């Protein structure tokens, strides 16, 4: 059975040249396709040590292998680039992957035969990249420069037709704000850590894609039978009805505990930002392509300063945590920032609001003064927050400092990001979750061990509280891991509790690489609706490359090692994987003292404990626990010879 062909399309924005080449069959076998192959391409082509905002940087866009098929929940496109966020005081930048779903983008890329779109160089003037099947052009975008994301997207779709997939940057991306991201289609954000600024540095306002080709699978009958069986299975999920009414807002009952910032009592938070409040604004729940659990929202604000404002995306969890941190009781004022960031500026809501929280508080206690802010008085009120938001987007005055992120605050004012009081920061990126209210579970660990500290694709059951050990086991057992591996992961210890978070994390990361490569949304695995065996069956039918779940996890491990090695080349090592300081400081909340505990809350974890967990993680990976880097032996065993010889040298 022949695997449907997949293509690498290279576009040089400096010269306008376009080159197409088929992906070698052996590479597809070893790296699964999609972003797995993308990582291999980036590893081969990205020069070490470059400035992420220089023309040499690569944007590598990979729709998943199963995107555009009828698989439940495979809309995702993964983009790999070197991110402009300053990851360390000595000026390192990580190379990472970010993912987004969407209704149109991934399908359009596949239909246009762009399985791996590699963009380098810099356009001479503001431009957008227009893809119509094999006709790829750089088009003048002077009229769009300075424009908001939604306006540009609407105009592009009107020009190019209703099947167009889009990636668009906002004003923050144009202004090279280091935490500018992009919006896919309309309701999906892509690229925490600064993909928007990378596009901005290339004078690339947008990418618009249309294609007419077929998306083929190697064994149609086997594929559709498996896909339909899985769709029927997902439909049996008891929470589905609630979920499709509320979208991601349906997670509040878990979320109000796991993401609690510890300032207001939980009842107060519930009243101001809880499920009932959210329901007032939800207009529609939007599904990504092929998803039968839709989770994105269209909302409309009722009353208040922003009465009638319409927004797209997922506003509630982020507005609730940042709202409490900033002491803003009106959720409508917080979701305005989300609406504006998604529709106009493209700035990262999390990073922006948390930096604003940090600097205004530091000002209040006298650690920052008006001579450092360019004469600006910083108060803890909404007007100041709104002003700082806009100044950051525009890089105006003090906003220019904020636009460079956490590390710049340390360099210019001695304000150490490790002093920040919520969620924690690693490699220059602030986390969404905090391990104190969340407990120290594998997702928390991936924030520090992954090259790019964000969670795309790596949730498991442990994200929710009080799951049984059997449920947690099932999530790895169903990927066909060997018995002795499972036993090692589920060996109780006095530093990690009932299971070994370090060892578990390794497999979770490898599975994440698989999910990203095929384009599967993590919600399906997180909720226990799809498992490794199902995914292997679909993959085998789609590609004709017969794979077991375990073989896919091994490919995931190979991809992860390649991703790690590019970052090792940039100088990253164990010190960069440090657990954030704040997790060791008790959170004094109106609900009582909250300390970082193991998943089942049997003990408070110390630095010594997490060091042991980190040792176990590296050991499980076959890496050197002293350096946190892959070993020659492991790389050779995975068949990554180039990296092995590079490391040996």
């Amino acid at each position: 059975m022949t695997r449907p062909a997949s293509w690498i399309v290279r576009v040089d924005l400096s010269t306008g040249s376009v080159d197409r080449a088929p992906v070698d069959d052996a590479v597809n076998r070893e790296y699964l396709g999609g972003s797995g192959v993308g990582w291999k391409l980036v590893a081969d082509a990205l020069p070490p040590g470059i400035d992420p905002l220089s023309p040499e940087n690569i944007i590598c866009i990979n729709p998943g292998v199963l995107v555009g098929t009828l698989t439940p929940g495979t809309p995702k496109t993964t983009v790999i680039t070197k991110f402009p966020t300053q990851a360390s005081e000595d000026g390192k930048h990580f190379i990472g992957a970010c993912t987004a779903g969407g209704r149109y983008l991934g399908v359009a890329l596949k239909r246009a035969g762009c399985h791996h779109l590699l963009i380098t160089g810099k356009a001479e003037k503001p431009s957008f990249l227009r893809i119509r099947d094999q006709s790829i052009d750089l088009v003048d975008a002077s009229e769009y420069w300075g424009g908001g994301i939604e306006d540009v997207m609407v105009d592009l779709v009107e020009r190019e037709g209703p099947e167009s997939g889009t990636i668009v940057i906002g004003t923050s991306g144009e202004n090279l704000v280091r935490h500018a991201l992009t919006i896919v289609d309309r309701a999906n954000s892509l690229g925490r850590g600064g993909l928007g600024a990378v596009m901005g540095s290339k004078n690339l306002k947008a990418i618009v894609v249309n294609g007419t080709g077929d998306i083929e699978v190697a064994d149609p009958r086997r594929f559709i039978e498996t896909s339909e069986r899985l769709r029927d299975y997902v439909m049996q999920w008891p929470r589905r009805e609630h979920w499709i009414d509320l979208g991601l807002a349906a997670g509040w009952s878990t979320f109000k505990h796991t993401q609690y910032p510890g300032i207001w009592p939980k009842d107060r938070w519930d009243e101001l930002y809880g499920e009932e409040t959210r329901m007032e604004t939800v207009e529609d729940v939007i599904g990504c392509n092929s998803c039968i659990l839709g989770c994105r929202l269209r909302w409309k604000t009722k009353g208040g300063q922003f009465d009638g404002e319409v927004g797209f995306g997922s506003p509630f969890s982020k507005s609730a945590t940042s709202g409490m941190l900033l002491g803003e009781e009106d959720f409508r004022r917080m979701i305005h920032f989300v609406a504006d960031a998604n529709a106009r500026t493209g700035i990262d809501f999390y990073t922006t609001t948390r930096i604003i929280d940090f600097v205004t508080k530091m000002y209040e206690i006298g650690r920052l003064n008006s001579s450092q802010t360019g004469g600006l008085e910083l108060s803890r009120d909404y007007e100041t927050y709104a002003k700082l938001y806009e100044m950051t987007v525009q890089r105006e005055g003090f906003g220019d400092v904020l636009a460079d992120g956490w590390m710049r605050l340390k360099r210019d004012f001695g304000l150490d990001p490790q002093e920040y009081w919520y969620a924690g920061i690693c490699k220059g990126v602030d986390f969404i979750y905090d391990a104190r209210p969340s407990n120290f579970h594998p997702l928390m660990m991936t924030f520090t061990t992954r090259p790019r500290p964000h969670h795309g694709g790596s949730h498991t059951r442990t994200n929710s509280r009080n799951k049984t050990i059997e449920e947690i086991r099932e999530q790895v057992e169903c990927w066909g891991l060997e018995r002795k591996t499972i036993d090692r992961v589920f060996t109780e210890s006095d530093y990690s509790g009932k299971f070994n978070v370090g060892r578990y994390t390794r497999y979770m990361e490898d599975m994440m690489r698989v999910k990203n490569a095929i384009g599967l949304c993590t919600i399906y695995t997180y909720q226990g609706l799809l498992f490794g065996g199902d995914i292997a069956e679909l993959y085998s039918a789609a590609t004709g490359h017969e794979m077991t779940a375990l073989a896919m996890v091994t490919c995931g491990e190979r991809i992860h090692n390649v991703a790690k090695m590019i970052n090792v080349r940039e100088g990253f090592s164990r010190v960069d994987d440090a657990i954030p300081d704040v997790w060791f400081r008790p959170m004094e909340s109106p609900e009582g003292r909250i300390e970082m505990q193991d998943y089942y809350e049997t003990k408070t974890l110390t630095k010594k404990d997490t060091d042991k967990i980190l040792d176990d993680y590296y050991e499980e990976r076959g890496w050197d626990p002293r350096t946190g880097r892959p070993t020659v032996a492991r790389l050779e065993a995975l068949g990554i010879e180039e990296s092995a010889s590079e490391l040996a040298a």
Partner: protein
Amino acid sequence: MTPKARGEAPGKLVIAAQNCRGCRSCQLACSFEKVGAFNPGRSMIVMERNLSDGRAAPMIKPIGCDLCGGEPACAKACKYGAITYEAEASEERIVVRLWNREGS
């Protein structure tokens, strides 16, 4: 694969666009049934894209749709109740039904 030929089906497809979440599963299922590959452009369904409110709505091309001989792939694939199939004999093959979101 070549398009399938089938006998006439008696029933009708009912479109309730207000239930549509825009996932486009119907288009993928239709094209797969017809040509054995996934391609919204080769399906019998055009997905309307409303740029003002972001909503999508399926519209079925009346010519060329044979209701899959009585087991329409689009209705089977739609999990939101935007396309359903009613098997009783009907003069109309495609019906658009509107009701408010509460379902009354």
